[in-house]
C-alpha cells in the first residue's frame, strides 16, 4: 500500500467525500436493521419463544394458506398429534388479539390460552388468573394481584413476566379454558385452540397432518401466517437490500472514475516493472481501508443513535448481529463493487507511458 496510502492522503477530499457517503449509507442501513429487528420482535417473539419446533394449523380451504386468524383446531387434533410416534409434546395454544382494560386504561393485547400445567407461559396461569407480559402490565398500569378485563373475561393478575409480543401487541397469558370462553363470548366452550405447538423427534409430519386434519409448519415457516409480518418484514428487508446494492454501485462508480483517472500513473508503474497483482492489491487495499473506516464510523453512529431511540417507544434492537452483519455486508459488497472497477488495471498498457502523448 505504498502508493495507495499516499494517494489516499493526497486526494483526501475525494476520499473523504466518498467515505462520507459510506458513513451515511451504513448509518441508514444500521438504523433500518435495528428497526426491522425491533418490529419483528414485536410481531413474532411470542411465537419464536414457544417451546416447540413446529406448529400445526387447521388445514385451510383449497387455495388459501394457513393463518393465525383463521385457524381453529379441535381437541381431537391435539389428542391425535400427541399419539403420533416421534411427537414428544403437543400443546394446544389459543391466540386471539383483542382489547383489555384495567381501571380506566385500555390496551390491545394478544390473549394466549395455554393449559395451566403446560409450562409455556412465563408464570403460573390458572382459570381466572393471568400472567401479563411487562409491556401489557405497563400499558394497563396493573401489578400482581390487580384486576383486569380481557374481552368479556374478568381476571386477576397472577404475575408480570417476560417481553412476549405478538402482532405488535403485548401478550396476556390465560388458561385455555378461559381463552375458550372469551373466544366465544361465553356462549359455547368447545374444546378448541388456534394452533398446536409440537415438539417432534423424527415424526412423520404428513402422516400426522393427515390423521389430525392439520397443516404443520416449522416455527420459522409459521411466521408468514402472521398477516402483517410478511409484508412488513419483506418491505423493510427490500429497502435494506436496495441500500446494499446502491452502496455497491456507488462505490463501484467511484472507483471506476478513480481508476480511469489513475490509468496514466498505472501505466508508468507497469513500465517501471510493477506486477499487475501488486497494483491490484494496492488498489483493493485502498478501497477496503476506505470502506472499513467509513463503515466503522457509520456503525458507531448507528449504535449511538439506536441507543437513544431505544429509550423511547420505538421498537429497536441493538445487538451484535443487527449491528455487525450489515456492516460486514457493506464492506463485502463495497469491496466487490470496487474490485470489479479496479479490474481495469489489468488492461492498462504500459506502452502508453513511453511516447510523448500524455
Amino acid at each position, binding site marked *: 500500500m*505504498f502508493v495507495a496510502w499516499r494517494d489516499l492522503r493526497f486526494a483526501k477530499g475525494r476520499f473523504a467525500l466518498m467515505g462520507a457517503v459510506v458513513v451515511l449509507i451504513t448509518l441508514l442501513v444500521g438504523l433500518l436493521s435495528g428497526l426491522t429487528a425491533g418490529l419483528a420482535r414485536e410481531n413474532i417473539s411470542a411465537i419464536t419463544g414457544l417451546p416447540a419446533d413446529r406448529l400445526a394449523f387447521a388445514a385451510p380451504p383449497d387455495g388459501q394458506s394457513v393463518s393465525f386468524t383463521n385457524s381453529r383446531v379441535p381437541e381431537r387434533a391435539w389428542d391425535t398429534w400427541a399419539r403420533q410416534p416421534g411427537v414428544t409434546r403437543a400443546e394446544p395454544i389459543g391466540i386471539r388479539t383483542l382489547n383489555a382494560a384495567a381501571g380506566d386504561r385500555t390496551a390491545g393485547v394478544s390473549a394466549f390460552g395455554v393449559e395451566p400445567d403446560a409450562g409455556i407461559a412465563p408464570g403460573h396461569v390458572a382459570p381466572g388468573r393471568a400472567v401479563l407480559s411487562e409491556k401489557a402490565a405497563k400499558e394497563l398500569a396493573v401489578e400482581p394481584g390487580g384486576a383486569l378485563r380481557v374481552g368479556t373475561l374478568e381476571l386477576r393478575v397472577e404475575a408480570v413476566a417476560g417481553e412476549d409480543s405478538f402482532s405488535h401487541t403485548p401478550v396476556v397469558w390465560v388458561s385455555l379454558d378461559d381463552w375458550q370462553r372469551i373466544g366465544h363470548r361465553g356462549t359455547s366452550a368447545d374444546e378448541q385452540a388456534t394452533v398446536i405447538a409440537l415438539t417432534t423427534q423424527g415424526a412423520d409430519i404428513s402422516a400426522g397432518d393427515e390423521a389430525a386434519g392439520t397443516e404443520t409448519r416449522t416455527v420459522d415457516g409459521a411466521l408468514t401466517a402472521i398477516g402483517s409480518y410478511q409484508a412488513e418484514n419483506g418491505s423493510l428487508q427490500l429497502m435494506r437490500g436496495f441500500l446494499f446494492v446502491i452502496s455497491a454501485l456507488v462505490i463501484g462508480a467511484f472507483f471506476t472514475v478513480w481508476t480511469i483517472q489513475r490509468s496514466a500513473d498505472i501505466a508508468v508503474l507497469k513500465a517501471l516493472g510493477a506486477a499487475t497483482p501488486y497494483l491490484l492489491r494496492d488498489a483493493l487495499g485502498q478501497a477496503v481501508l476506505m470502506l472499513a473506516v467509513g463503515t466503522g464510523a457509520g456503525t458507531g453512529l448507528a449504535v449511538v443513535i439506536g441507543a437513544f431511540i431505544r429509550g423511547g417507544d420505538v421498537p429497536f434492537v441493538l445487538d451484535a448481529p443487527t449491528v455487525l452483519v450489515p456492516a460486514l455486508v457493506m464492506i463485502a459488497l463495497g469491496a466487490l463493487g470496487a474490485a470489479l472497477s479496479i479490474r481495469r488495471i489489468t488492461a492498462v498498457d504500459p506502452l502508453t507511458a513511453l511516447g510523448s502523448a500524455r
Partner: protein
Amino acid sequence: MTLLLDAVTLTYPDGDSRLTALDDVSLEVPAGTMTAIVGPSGSGKSSLLAVAATLVTPDRGRVVVDGTPTRELSPAQKSALRRVRVGIVFQQPNLLPALTSTEQLQVMAHLDGRKPRQVRARARELLHAVGLDDKVDRRPHQLSGGQRQRVNIARALMNEPAVLLVDEPTSALDHERGAAILDLLVRLTRERGTATVLVTHDRAHLAEADQVRAMADGRLDTQAPA
C-alpha cells in the same frame, strides 16, 4: 554485451495492413557507454526503446537484456526484468503526483518487495547525485520541469539497472537545462556502468555519445561517432 537487439522487426496493426515501426534493426550497447539515436518524428525511436524495455514483443528478432533473452519470458518475468535490470527515463517525467521526490525513488524498491525504509539512504544519495538535495521532500507539482526530469533520471537508476533507456529527456527543457541533464546522464553512465540508449532530437547531444545511430522509416543506419 549488455543490451543486444538482433534483426528486430516490429509492426503495429494499421487498418487492414500493418505498419512497420522497426525494420530489421540490430544494435549493441556495451556497459558504461552511451548510444545516441537520432531521427525524424515517427521514425521508430520510441518503438526501439519499447522493444528494449520488453514493453512490446517484436514480430521477429532477438532482444537480450543483460544476458537474458526476452522472447520466452512470461509477463511476470518481464515485469521483474524491467524492475531490476532496466531503467527507463520517460520523455515526460511521469512522476506520481502523491509522492515526494524521495518516495518516487523508494517506490522502486517497494515494487520489488523490499522495504522502502531500507533504501531511503540510497534514494537520498541518488537525489544528491542529480543535484536535488534540497528538494527531497517536494511533490512533483512543487518542482520545476528540469527538477522533475532529474527525479525521473534518479528513479531510473534506483534499482541499479544494467540498461538505461532514455527517451528525449530534454525536449521539455530550455537549452541550458537540457545540456545539464545530458551531462548528468553521461556522468551517470560512466560512473554506474549502464548500457545507455539516448533518443534525442538535439544535435548538441551527439558529441558526448560513444556511438550515434540514425533512424529513418524504422531502419537504423550506422554513423561514425561524432
